[in-house]
């Protein structure tokens, strides 16, 4: 207790000393005002400017002078740093130092929280630009020490919670000072992420696309607020507007999210600084294209323990490659000119920072860049010229090392922050490491000392046999105890002649005092070293493929001129089936269809006994996406699947293997008004943006039936809970959209609302609806609502009772995209019949067969064939249900869906009749580029096995050589369906 009191007193004293206008009652008022000069050091003034034998003069926590000929004042304290190096202390701009993350809010209520819990703030609790981290900041001396030991002088910290997280605090890691001095900036940046706040249970956004839409709407509203158009006070929007000119630092958790964040920022003229996740090497060209500054973690995964072959074979190549490739991330980023800072964030312990950085350097990352990424770049990102360098006037934040800071053998002695010394390794402790001949008791021992500073340890051997012993080196005194059969020998002593000889007094087991000495053996290392060098394994980094997994493409297929000869051509046009016909593909288009075609330089493909068709178009798919439902509101027209296309989904490749080339990636069916679609071509290896159609037709998902009324949720509270409510919801939204559109068109000021914008597009005929539907009552209802409100329903998807209202559908002009034979899985599909497609078709409705299932979407040709069995559709009409008809429904029939001159060269060559169970897609071509080839596929299988063995050998090698390993983990890919409800993380 007394001790504590004393400590408090001492602290308050030192703080009182610090602020010179504060009164003091502890004695006479004193001021420390000394200058300190560091001389004879190699000094990195900045990451690029080095001074040899330089002098650094500091006073009051700042650099007063620096250079080779600095005059040291008489009253300055001088520290000679001969053969030592000084660097500016490092800066970490992504941290939550000293700010505890709030614990996750829990609730016993079964009621889902749709509304915000804060009053006077934005309508969504996860938008928290108003958060002032100062309130929760408390200098964490323990964590500060970890940073200091790693060479950091300044961190930018923040409340790591929510989508918009409030401003950052720039903190000097100076445990010897007070917050009054060490907080350098209370508004150093604004932080953002795609993660929700733990402080609120408000469910929206429930997906990453919802988070993106929420950000957009928030920016819209902030500018509307800034113009003084809102009647209410909104402290969150006010704070957002206040923080507008700060650096915006966006934390992401994978590379796709980094691109997504950048996309949102670009739309509002904001260039985020992106906190990456270490996987940027996978699409570094796209990373460069963002023009963003990045903050990169270096948290490398350890190798898998692959000693159990049964387990090892289940680890995906993607995960194994990561271990091999990720240490090269920094090198790749630097080589591609990406501007980035480094962060310790995501490391379990800051202690591993240097080890990982050394690994990255071993993998080719330059030391110059490393220093920049730790000093000048983070300082520049924050726009702070006083940190990350040692120019005159900058903070006296610097480290003193024994040499090259990025060398494993280098010792970091001191880290000065704001002119205050922090000892990491005592510079005054001599480095004793080496082999010595120890003489005591007329015996000669081998003494081997290793380690650094106070942590030096020793091993004692007699004739190569290890002897039990203790060793310590403290306050320049060496003490050694030997424990032999003959008894104990205790020694005390010191070094003379630097560290080559040590000597002192010894006591044998009987207490007799004698003398001991040890002298360093001169090593003949030169030869050994060179042989060691050759032994060091060459680092092999396996090449990255696109996407970076087993069946990825090392090189993207190129547009070729291709002549397919003598095939049976299913045109999906009036021309029907053309036998023994040639098709020429050129410049990504179908150039010519005919007999005996010639084309110079064209790649010839023999189509004899084979069938050529247009690529399959899937009207309803959920592959290639990172999210499917924004379920947390009953209308989410503001979200779009285009935001979340996932080009790394193996199902893209598998769909190609079944002849599918185009898919509409639909939002799910969790709410009556769902999100907008992404219509993609399955160009395996391209990035998300390139997969989405150029000038894509605009679509949105609507839904009816059991899912939207939460039939399977035991405690649904969201409107609507009945089909009756569903009607009124549509009427309500479209009435409001009409009013919105009218106001907008009137030229008067209006609050931009992304949801209303989308619905207005529907009213104006610019966006089409694909509506999930089951029973006839609701199908009829939506058509009537559409008639009343003045829009058209483009497609009913699923439409399992379409056959009951086919005449009404025909009249409305809506198409039907249905399953071939699904039923009996829920109550509303009781009357679903496989004859549905045939009946609708016969009634004059445009009918497509869709998948809604990643497995079925790779054999839609077989599903089309079922329309022949059920209801007797002709083969030609059956084939149209997966080609030209879905293309028509998607308003893409002028581009794809049939084999017609001038259309996109999206074709499939089949081994047999395309709807036969025995057929296989041999080549799947998109825009004249061969994206699937059965022969190449076989080669890829072999390559995967080979690469896996290579990696397994590398990992075994790692384990055998004492490297860290972790148990195997088997990746399972997520299966998205219409009713998948994912959860956005806190």
């Amino acid at each position, binding site marked *: 207790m007394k001790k504590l009191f004393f400590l408090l007193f001492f602290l308050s004293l030192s703080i009182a000393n610090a602020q010179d206008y504060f009164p003091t009652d502890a004695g006479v008022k004193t001021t420390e005002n000394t200058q300190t000069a560091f001389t004879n050091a190699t000094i990195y003034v900045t990451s690029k400017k080095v001074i040899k034998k330089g002098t650094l003069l500091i006073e009051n926590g700042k650099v007063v002078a620096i250079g080779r000929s600095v005059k040291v004042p008489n009253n300055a304290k001088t520290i000679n740093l001969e053969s030592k190096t000084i660097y500016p202390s490092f800066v970490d701009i992504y941290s939550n130092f000293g700010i505890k993350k709030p614990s996750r809010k829990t609730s016993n209520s079964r009621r889902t929280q749709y509304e915000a819990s804060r009053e006077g703030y934005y309508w969504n609790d996860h938008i928290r630009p108003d958060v002032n981290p100062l309130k929760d900041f408390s200098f964490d001396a323990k964590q500060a020490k970890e940073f200091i030991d790693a060479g950091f002088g300044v961190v930018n910290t923040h409340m790591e919670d929510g989508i918009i997280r409030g401003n950052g605090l720039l903190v000097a890691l100076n445990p010897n000072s007070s917050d009054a001095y060490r907080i350098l900036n209370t508004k150093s940046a604004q932080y953002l992420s795609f993660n929700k706040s733990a402080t609120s249970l408000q469910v929206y956004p429930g997906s990453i696309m919802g988070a993106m839409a929420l950000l957009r709407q928030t920016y819209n509203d902030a500018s509307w607020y800034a113009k003084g158009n809102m009647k209410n006070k909104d402290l969150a929007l006010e704070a957002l507007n206040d923080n507008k000119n700060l650096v915006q630092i966006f934390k992401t958790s994978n590379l796709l999210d980094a691109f997504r964040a950048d996309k949102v920022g670009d739309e509002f003229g904001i260039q985020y600084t992106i906190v990456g996740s270490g996987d940027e090497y996978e699409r570094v060209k796209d990373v460069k294209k963002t023009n963003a500054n990045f903050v990169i973690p270096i948290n490398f995964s350890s190798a898998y323990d692959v000693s159990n072959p049964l387990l090892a074979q289940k680890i995906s190549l993607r995960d194994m490659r990561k271990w091999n490739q990720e240490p090269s991330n920094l090198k790749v980023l630097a080589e591609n000119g990406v501007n980035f800072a480094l962060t310790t964030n995501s490391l379990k312990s800051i202690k591993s920072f240097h080890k990982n950085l050394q690994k990255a350097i071993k993998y080719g990352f330059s030391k110059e860049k490393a220093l920049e990424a730790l000093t000048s770049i983070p300082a520049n990102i924050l726009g702070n010229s006083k940190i990350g360098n040692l120019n005159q006037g900058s903070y006296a934040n610097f480290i003193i090392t024994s040499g090259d800071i990025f060398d494993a053998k280098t010792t970091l002695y001191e880290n000065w922050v704001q002119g205050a010394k922090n000892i990491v390794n005592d510079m005054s402790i001599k480095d004793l490491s080496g082999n010595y001949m120890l003489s005591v008791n007329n015996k000669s021992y081998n003494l081997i000392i290793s380690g650094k500073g106070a942590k030096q340890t020793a091993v004692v051997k007699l004739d190569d046999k290890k002897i039990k012993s203790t060793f310590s080196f403290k306050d320049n005194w060496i003490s050694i105890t030997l424990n032999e059969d003959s008894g104990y020998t205790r020694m005390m002593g010191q070094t003379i002649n630097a560290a080559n000889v040590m000597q002192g007094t010894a006591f044998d087991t009987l207490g007799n005092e004698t003398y001991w000495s040890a002298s360093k053996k001169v090593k003949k290392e030169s030869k050994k070293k060179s042989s060691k060098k050759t032994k060091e394994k060459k680092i092999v980094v396996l090449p990255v493929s696109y996407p970076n997994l087993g069946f990825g493409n090392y090189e993207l297929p190129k547009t070729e001129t291709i002549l397919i000869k003598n095939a049976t051509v299913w045109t999906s046009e009036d021309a029907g089936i053309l036998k023994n016909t040639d098709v020429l593909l050129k410049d990504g288009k179908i150039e010519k269809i005919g007999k005996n075609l010639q084309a110079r330089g064209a790649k010839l493909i023999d189509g004899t006994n084979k069938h050529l068709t247009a690529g399959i178009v899937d009207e309803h798919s959920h592959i290639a996406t990172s999210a499917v439902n924004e379920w947390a509101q009953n209308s989410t027209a503001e979200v779009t699947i285009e935001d979340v296309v996932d080009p790394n989904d193996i199902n893209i490749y598998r769909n190609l293997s079944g002849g599918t080339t185009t898919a509409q990636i639909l939002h799910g069916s969790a709410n009556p008004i769902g999100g907008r679609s992404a219509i993609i071509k399955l160009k395996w290896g391209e990035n998300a943006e390139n997969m989405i159609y150029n000038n894509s037709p605009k679509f949105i998902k609507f839904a009816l039936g059991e899912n939207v009324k939460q039939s399977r949720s035991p405690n649904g509270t969201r409107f609507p809970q009945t089909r009756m409510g569903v009607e009124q919801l549509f009427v309500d939204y479209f009435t409001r959209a009409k009013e919105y559109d009218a106001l907008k068109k009137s030229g008067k000021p209006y609050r931009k609302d992304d949801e209303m914008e989308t619905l207005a597009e529907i009213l104006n005929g610019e966006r089409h609806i694909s509506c999930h539907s089951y029973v006839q009552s609701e199908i009829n209802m939506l058509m009537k609502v559409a008639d009343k409100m003045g829009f058209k329903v483009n497609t009913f998807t699923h439409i399992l009772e379409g056959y009951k209202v086919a005449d009404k559908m025909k009249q409305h002009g809506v198409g039907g995209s249905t399953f071939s034979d699904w039923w009996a*899985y829920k109550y509303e599909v009781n009357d679903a019949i496989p004859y549905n497609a045939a009946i609708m078709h016969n009634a004059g409705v445009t009918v497509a067969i869709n998948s809604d299932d990643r497995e079925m979407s790779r054999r839609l040709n077989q599903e089309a064939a079922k329309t022949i069995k059920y209801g007797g559709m002709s083969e030609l009409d059956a084939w149209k249900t997966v080609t030209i008809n879905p293309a028509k429904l998607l308003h893409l029939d002028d581009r794809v869906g049939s084999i017609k001159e001038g259309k996109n060269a999206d074709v499939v060559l089949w081994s047999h009749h395309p709807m036969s169970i025995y057929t296989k897609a041999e080549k799947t071509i998109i825009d004249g580029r061969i994206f699937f080839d059965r022969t190449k596929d076989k080669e890829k299988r072999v390559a995967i096995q080979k690469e896996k063995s290579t990696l397994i050998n590398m990992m075994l090698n790692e384990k055998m050589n004492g490297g860290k390993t972790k148990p195997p983990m088997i990746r399972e890919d997520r299966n998205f369906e219409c009713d998948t409800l994912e959860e956005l993380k806190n």
Partner: protein
Amino acid sequence: MKKTIYSLLFFFLIGNILAQQTPADKQNMPFSIEGATAHLGNGEVIENALIMFNKGKITFVGSAMAKIARVGNVINATGKHIYPGFIAANATLGLVEIDAVKASDDEDEIGAMNPHIRSIIAYNAESKVVESMRPNGVLMAQITPRGGVISGTSSVVQLDAWNWEDAAIKTDDGIHINWPSSFTRGRWWLGEDPALKPDTKYSERTTQLKMYFENAKLYLAGKKEKTHLPYEATAGLFNNSKRFYIHADGQKEITDAVKMAKTLGIAKITIVGGEGADKIADFLVSKNVSVILNRPHRNPDSEDDAYDVTYTIAKTLTDKGVLVSIGMEGQMERMNTRNIPFYAGTFAAHGLAKEEAVKLITLNAAKILGIDAFTGSLEVGKDATLFISEGDALEMRGNRLTAAFIQGRKISLETHQTKLWKRYAKKYKS
């Protein structure tokens, strides 16, 4: 409120039951089918065949060139195909009517060790889903309980019956167990990575299972002073009257399971599921173990797997000499059971000979289920359970039935679905 919903649902189900097809009468007149391509189900094909049957049994199988009197009702099936009725193994037809309606669900009893639970008594012979099998040639099925470690006892039925007793062609044919996986998923709700990792409790679980059967054996050999119903139910496993169906995936799991069953002295063993069985086919042959494969229309487990890995396994196993059939477990399994001919077709597309593919769902299935003595192939003396198809019945395009017989009875090919089809097709014509 809830009560009304349930009674309402009940009303609907009853309403539907009333609408079902009437089971056909006993065969009272012989049939002769000539001119078709007959796929016998044992791997043989007869072009231009003549098949005759009377009183429910097949009386002639041969060429239509044979100079033999055609008896009874003669059907000219020139250009068509005849097959033995297809058999769906490891199915749950009639145990659930609508997946999402709990009141209609009878497939999974609570408790872990349920050998005494019998599927047959819950089998709804009048299910709308059951009748939808027949227009696709699926005429018999093994009705299997799901869930638990020991799920219970299955039975084999034909799909045109008044009630379950009527339907049963082999009662209590075997006991089904779910072999533990050596992997476990991370508990994501506790913040763990949801990926799979080795299950440290695997050997504990398998040991428990083994002990259960050892105890059952001891009980059966003892005085049985107090009756133990579950143990009683296992007796058939040890006296060879019941088959041991081990639902297992993974080569390690399958190997461990088969070895345990052999140790217990169980003779009739079938692996159900069988992923990875192709890697240990020789072992399975040496232990006389058959395999009921998962349906091929599913995604490969790992993204590094070849896209056709689930399509090619039947060929590998068959080539090695394993007796193979196809089962139905999985999502939407009841409604999908009518697609079993196309699963066989998919195996044929990926290497298996077409007649071998037919065997998977005819004679092979019958052999595994223990009904091959009287059905499963077109052979004299066997049940006249067969159908005529316009084309190749393993093809969607070809599978169009013109007639089907179960035990010689000419069954209706109408269903709830065909009735709606006809009703609405007519609506738009008028």
